[in-house]
């Protein structure tokens, strides 16, 4: 009986997160906002935590599961490579070089900027 209630609870937790996403998507299209539904759902859930009526612990299991397995949800989009075989043979290496090179630069600059600003603000607080 205990496992049944726990299972039911977990399904309910997932349903809350999916529901918030669907509601966010509907709201965005109704208002004509170009914001993804997930971002609106995220904002709503944060607002619910801020009121103090909803505890983060009440959706912790489902949130943990979705975040832990997020890599799986990215695989289908990668498979769109199936339709671009010719392009990838022609320009694939150059595209990978541009993306790889640019991404390395972005990471380097971002990390050093954040680190620098953090140290600066710590010095100024002290």
């Amino acid at each position, binding site marked *: 009986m205990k496992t049944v209630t726990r299972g039911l609870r977990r399904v309910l937790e997932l349903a809350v*997160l*999916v529901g*918030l*996403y*669907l509601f*966010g*998507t509907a709201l965005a299209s109704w208002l004509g906002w*170009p*914001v*993804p*539904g*997930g*971002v609106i*759902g*995220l904002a709503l*859930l*944060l607002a619910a935590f801020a009121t103090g009526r909803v505890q*983060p612990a009440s*959706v912790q299991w*489902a*949130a943990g599961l*979705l*975040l832990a397995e*997020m*890599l*799986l*949800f*990215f*695989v*289908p*989009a*990668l*498979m*769109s*490579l*199936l*339709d*671009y*075989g010719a392009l990838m043979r022609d*320009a694939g290496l150059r*595209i*990978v*070089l*541009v*993306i*790889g*090179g*640019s*991404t390395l630069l*972005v*990471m380097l*600059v*971002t*990390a*050093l*900027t*954040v*680190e620098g600003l*953090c140290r600066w*603000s710590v010095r100024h607080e002290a």
Partner: protein
Amino acid sequence: MRLDALPLFWLLFTVAAYVVSRALYRRWPRYLLSPLLMTPAVLLAVAVPLHVRYADYAADAHYLALMLGPATVAFAVPIWQQRHLLARHWLALLGGMLAGSAVAVGSSWWLAGLLSLEGEISRSLVPRSVTTPFAMPLAESLGGVAELAAIFVMLTGVLGALCGGVLLRWLPLKTALARGALFGVGAHGAGVARAREVGGEEGTVAGLVMVLMGLLNLAAGPLLVWLFV
């Protein structure tokens, strides 16, 4: 009848390949065994010889991609738990995001020109650092192709998640904030998943930065269109 014509074959096959590669990766944590690389490699090795089109694959497997929406909502939990850290360092994060975005746009355009890629491809490369739902319409208004932009976003995530780990090894970063922002700005979703492996705080920062990057790019979109069109 071919096995792959069974309903939901590709969905089940994707999940199975992921679960197996994740187990292998836990046992032997090497980059080549990372589920983000292994799972599509196994799937492509089966799908390409069978001449499967993306539409056939997606008909089964798009349910998985749909879960990215609820996963975005789920970020509310770690963001709320780390709210004090984020409130304290919002300026550093904003600075990193602005610098990172400028470098993303500038360096993609510069490198694409250097390697003489066609205009249509270059224009689809520019909005790459954005998450997919934001990047696709932006690519079109820049004169690129939405589907190409989606592929480039994915490649950015994969390459970024892989290089980011290597970069962390020789960059002397003392704060979890910088390590998280590196992944969140550089490799969005896939980077966030990778940052969560590095540490809980890194994962939270990366997730928050990814969401904020999407919003920032929404504001910066018109500026890009003005610069490039």
